[in-house]
């Protein structure tokens, strides 16, 4: 029985791209949340944390509406940029980024907040700008948090089901990722293929989580 590897490939592709985008997005967001205070900060923090408690289908439903050309945002995208996000890989990436945002932002925010303020102040008294301080003092001291954020985002995106089903539409080669493929195969009573997909996801998830715990155990703590 030949196994179609495309869903697994698609899953890893989606997880990798989502993680890179989340890292670029999560660093400035968590930096601002950790080090500044402004009106409405609580609202932003709440919005970022919403995917933790919201059923994935709810988020998927709203994104589906937003992306669909029948509605204002989707219509505007199609008119101006000729982009259709609904039932596309790009749409999946955007959905995954929103859905996994707290898994990147929370560890990074905790990491930034665990660095003693005096280190940042010392860097300032040594004439270094906030950007140099971020690059040369903060990031090296939150390596464990960076790793946690990257791995949790990657693993969480691999495990997505509801959001990708709602906005991806389960199209083979485009949006049918491994988690959806398992469901399909079980429905078709093709347990052998389901075993392969499920087994790969299980082993990969276990391995990367184990690696994170092992590395974090050895990482030196900031005093």
């Amino acid at each position, binding site marked *: 029985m030949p196994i179609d590897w495309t869903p697994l490939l698609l899953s890893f592709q989606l997880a990798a791209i989502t993680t890179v985008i989340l890292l670029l997005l999560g660093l400035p967001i968590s930096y601002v949340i950790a080090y500044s205070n402004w009106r409405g900060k609580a609202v932003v923090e709440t919005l970022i944390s919403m995917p933790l408690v919201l059923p994935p289908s709810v988020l998927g439903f709203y994104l589906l509406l937003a992306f669909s050309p029948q509605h204002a945002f989707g219509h505007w995208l199609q008119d101006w940029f000729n982009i259709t996000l609904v039932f596309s890989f790009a749409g999946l990436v955007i959905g995954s980024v929103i859905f996994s945002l707290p898994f990147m932002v929370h560890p990074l925010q905790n990491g930034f907040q665990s660095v003693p303020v005096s280190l940042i102040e010392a860097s300032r008294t040594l*004439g270094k700008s906030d950007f140099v301080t971020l690059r040369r003092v903060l990031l090296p001291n939150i390596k464990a948090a960076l790793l946690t954020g990257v791995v949790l985002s990657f693993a969480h995106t691999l495990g997505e089901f509801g959001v990708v089903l709602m906005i991806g539409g389960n199209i083979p080669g485009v949006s049918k990722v491994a988690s959806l493929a398992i469901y399909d195969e079980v429905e078709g009573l093709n347990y052998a293929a389901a075993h392969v997909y499920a087994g790969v996801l299980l082993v990969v998830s276990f391995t990367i989580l184990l690696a994170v715990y092992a590395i974090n155990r050895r990482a030196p703590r900031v*005093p």
Partner: protein
Amino acid sequence: MESAFEIKLKKTFVSAAAQLQLDVELSAPSQSFIALTGPSGSGKTTLLRMLAGLTSPDDGRIVFAGDVWFDRLARAERSTQARSIGFVFQDYALFPHLSVRENIEYGLVKPDPRWVHELLSLTELVDQQRHKPQQLSGGQQQRVALARALARRPKLLLLDEPLSALDTALRARLHDLLAELHQRLKLTTIMVSHDLGDIFRLAQQVWVIGGGKITDVGTPQQVFLKHRSPGKFNLHARVLAIRREDVVYVLSLLVSGNEIVDVLASADEVANLQVGATIVVASNAFSPLLQETR
């Protein structure tokens, strides 16, 4: 030309117990060594942080060597980075991921291996330069913090209780080092300290602060010695043991840190005294023998 250092600052801040209004007006010739002293929570660290630009004053003006660092009326505030300062934090604030050498190099404006080596040898850290801060003793960490603060060749050195954690021998060595660096680098230095020994050894001027106000300014002699009558000794001591010998009592006392002396006492004097109590040993018409120890 000797340009002055002028501070006039107001700041409401929250100290350990209450809200306090810091209100100070001070000046000093540049390149002086100033000791800032007073009870804890009186605003010493807040004053130091305002000079460094780490805390914004509510009102006032800071002029250092002709440069305006802060002026509320002119709405001018120079960032911490743009002030020529070195700051030694109470907790040292060394970068844990960098070695001793890298910590010092971090403070450089441009690479200068000779200057780094000079700082390392002045602070006797050449052998430890590859160590991480966690591998160093308290005294060594303190010296790294000092060397790092001096790396960018600041004009104003701010020291927040730099000697508090050190034992007597190390303290004496660091006194010499601080005095030498202050001279050689033509620094203006402000040091927060509670220790009269440190202050007399190093400072040309003392600022005494209490409850947010400057209560006394002058040389260490003017500030600390003016109320003393000559020939009278007051020593603070702790009672280590009380024992009775015939008709008198003998108290074993811990004086000036580590010296133990025995003194005679009457039954009245020891009546309410317990081991561990802190007492004052006073003596009139006292003509002591003076000898230098080294």
